[in-house]
């Protein structure tokens, strides 16, 4: 065989391989005015709303499905699939009057029976959904369902347009906030039951403003507008959701005009704010998220003494971190529950920055100058946590003389360490709201029986206050009790709040009608969005 033939073969084989299958057709690029393009941060692991715990699956759920109660941009509860509701005087019985113009994408009308079936599925112990505890947890009969299966006794379809939900007296507070959780949606029973385990792969079972048209794995998801949406047909024809895993790539695609809406990576915030063009396209608003430092008494002996934990809190200058590390983009956090959550503890001062008092507390505790080195793990999922950890570590070293070592790990290992609770002496992480309610913070992060109480805080007084809040008859009584519990936890140094974060999004000037929110990815359903080029 001659040299040429071999070379030609090699090259031809390479080219043939390259072209096998031909050029794929170009994806729609949104040249038509009616297409709105915003990225998903990763391949959605599922499109079953009841298992949607990540942002990609959450965004899909938000756009394709309906909850009974929704949120507006200010975080207020608004009717969604229910046009109104009545609450019994004791706050235990909720009667929802459903709209008569909500249709599944299959064309079938949504009835109270569909809601009943959906709530039963949320709690179904055989499939263990991610929404069961969050949404159905407070409903009477949920605990029985967990043990014996079947439906939830507390949910009843009174007639096709009336749904009644009876609550457990010990957990009546904030129920509507839970119902506004993006995943507390109604599902089209026919689609779910006929589609088997992977019913969501090819189609959705929703009644929301958009319906799934195409899901090319690892590449993009396309949603089409649903003309019969109860609030009126969306103003855009399609939503293109390319799956782009790298934040920098998303930003570059936005700059190149390939995307209409993206989140701004923190490292680029200052540059973009100063940019004459993009600076004007930047929208900034509060996010219901806190960055906090978790002192873990189970691993780091000195943290067993509340005075030591409080000393750590007093030795960290949050205002300086917010101002210098996060260039004033984030706000120093005095309390645990962020602004944007109904009942936010405005005016609460928390623990001030007071290194002298901190040193005094260490002396009282008998550990001044004797603190062993402390390893602080950092949640790697976002850059902010590492930035906050570095600053806090330096302040602790300067003010208390404790040698803080930062531990960087990948997400899987970090998550495992967090759940084991016996791995990290301290950790810097964040918490963003699933649903806008106090219980999503205090009940989950610090209540002694919560699986997410990763600082192993077990203060009977705190638990009692939370229990009382959940059983409180009125919203104002509930809020007052939660404020007490919150102040107790802060002053106990159970967790050390650092900053409340904000969203920074870039939106093209031709995009109108985008509604923002403190939760989720920062936006509400796109049915009001229009493109006017």
């Amino acid at each position, binding site marked *: 065989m001659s040299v040429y033939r*071999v070379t030609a073969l090699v090259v031809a084989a390479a080219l043939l391989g390259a072209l096998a299958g031909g050029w794929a057709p170009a994806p729609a690029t949104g040249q038509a005015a009616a297409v709105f393009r915003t990225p998903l941060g990763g391949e959605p692991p599922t499109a079953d709303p009841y298992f949607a715990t990540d942002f990609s699956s959450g965004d899909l759920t938000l756009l394709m499905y309906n909850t009974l109660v929704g949120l507006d941009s200010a975080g207020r509860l608004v009717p969604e699939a229910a046009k109104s509701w009545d609450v019994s005087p004791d706050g235990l019985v909720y009667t929802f009057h459903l709209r008569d113009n909500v249709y599944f994408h299959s064309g079938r009308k949504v009835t109270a029976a569909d809601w009943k079936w959906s709530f039963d599925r949320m709690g179904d112990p055989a499939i263990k959904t991610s929404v069961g505890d969050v949404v159905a947890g407070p409903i009477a009969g949920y605990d029985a369902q967990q043990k014996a299966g079947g439906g939830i006794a507390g949910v009843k379809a009174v007639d096709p347009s009336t749904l009644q939900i009876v609550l457990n007296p010990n957990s009546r507070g904030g129920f509507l906030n839970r119902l506004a959780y993006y995943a507390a949606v109604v599902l089209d029973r026919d689609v779910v039951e006929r589609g088997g385990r992977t019913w969501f792969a090819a189609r959705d079972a929703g009644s929301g403003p958009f319906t799934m048209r195409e899901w090319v794995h690892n590449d993009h998801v396309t949603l089409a507008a649903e003309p019969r949406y109860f609030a009126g047909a969306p103003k855009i024809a399609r939503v293109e959701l390319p799956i782009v895993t790298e934040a920098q790539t998303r930003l570059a695609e936005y700059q190149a005009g390939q995307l209409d809406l993206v989140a701004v990576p923190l490292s680029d915030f200052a540059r973009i704010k100063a940019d004459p063009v993009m600076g004007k396209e930047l929208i900034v608003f509060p996010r219901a998220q806190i960055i906090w430092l978790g002192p873990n008494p189970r691993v780091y002996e000195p943290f067993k003494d509340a005075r030591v934990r409080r000393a750590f809190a007093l030795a960290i200058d949050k205002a300086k971190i917010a101002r210098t590390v996060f260039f004033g983009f984030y706000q120093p956090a005095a309390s645990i529950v962020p602004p944007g959550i109904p009942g936010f503890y405005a005016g609460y001062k928390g623990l001030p920055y007071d290194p002298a008092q901190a040193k005094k507390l260490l002396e009282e505790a008998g550990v001044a100058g004797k603190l062993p080195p402390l390893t602080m793990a950092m949640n790697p999922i976002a850059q902010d946590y590492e930035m906050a950890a570095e600053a806090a570590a330096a302040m602790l070293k300067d003010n208390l003389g404790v040698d803080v070592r930062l531990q960087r790990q990948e997400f899987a290992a970090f998550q495992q360490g967090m759940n084991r609770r016996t791995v990290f002496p301290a950790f810097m992480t964040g918490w963003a709201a699933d649903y806008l309610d106090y219980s999503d913070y205090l009940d989950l992060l610090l209540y002694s029986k919560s699986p997410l109480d990763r600082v192993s805080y077990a203060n009977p007084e705190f638990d009692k206050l939370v229990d009382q809040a959940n059983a409180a008859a009125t919203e104002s009584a509930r809020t007052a009790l939660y404020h007490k519990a919150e102040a107790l936890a802060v002053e106990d140094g159970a967790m050390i709040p650092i900053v409340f974060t904000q969203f920074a999004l870039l939106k093209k000037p031709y995009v109108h009608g985008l509604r923002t929110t403190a939760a989720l990815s920062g936006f509400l359903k796109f049915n009001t969005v229009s493109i006017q080029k």
Partner: protein
Amino acid sequence: MLRYLAYRVALTAPLLLGTALLIFLAGHYAPGDPVQVLLADHYTPEGAAHLRHELGLDRPLAAQFAGYIGRAARFDFGASYVNPARPVAEIVRQTLPVSLRLAALAVAAAALAGTALGVCAAVFERSAADRLIQLGVIAGLSVPSFVVAAVLVLLFALRWRLFPVAGWGHPSDYVLPVAVLAAAPLAYVTRISRASVRRALAEDYVRTARSKGLRRSAILARHVLRNAALPIVTTIGMAFGYAITGAFVVEVIFNIPGMARVAVDAILQRDYSVIQTAVLVYTAIFTFVNLAVDVSYAALNPRIRY
């Protein structure tokens, strides 16, 4: 030759099995498990136990491995842990062609351009062109691909808007990633072909050919290139390796839905079934590329026989 081929192909079976075992053990003994990632902040001990059982992770390691190998032998790689609705075989079927196409385009570009540049540099040794090419080779070998990618995106996509920043599907999407992926192999092929053409040019048979009045182009094509081809072909084989591994960076940067990006995601999410299968597939590809290179030696050089 046929016996040799059969021997080499047979050798891949234990190789694949060994690789599968290694990666299986590495995955299971590395910190972090898929259940924790999947549940993330919705973790409860009961939820974790339920999921662990569903994924079969509560079975003994040996049973898990034997089950995996048994099914893999029938090309059934199970379902992704992270996305149970997707069989891994389907993921491979969708993403592998993308990665192979990207790699093949990069190798073809590197082989054609690299050989041409190398020959040019050797023929015009010590000329300005040669020095320029040499400089380019050093740059290509020493600048990491993510830097090349950033510079190319900045200039060609953001400043001049000639190509898209990222994406996959339209022919114009291919240009930048292929250029980035081809940079290092191109430099390598150029360097090797320059050296081996230079060596061949100094041989007696070239002087003989010249003295009998053959045209320079004919000498180059018929005598020099043929004798210089062996190392070049080896390098092109290795370039394929470069391109496949380089794709782990390039596919992520340019958001290409290929197998390398899926593998990176799978590693971060501890999606064992996908990781294991990706490693198996890559091992098989490398084995066969090496085999193809070895076989091509015999075709190129009659003195080599197996």
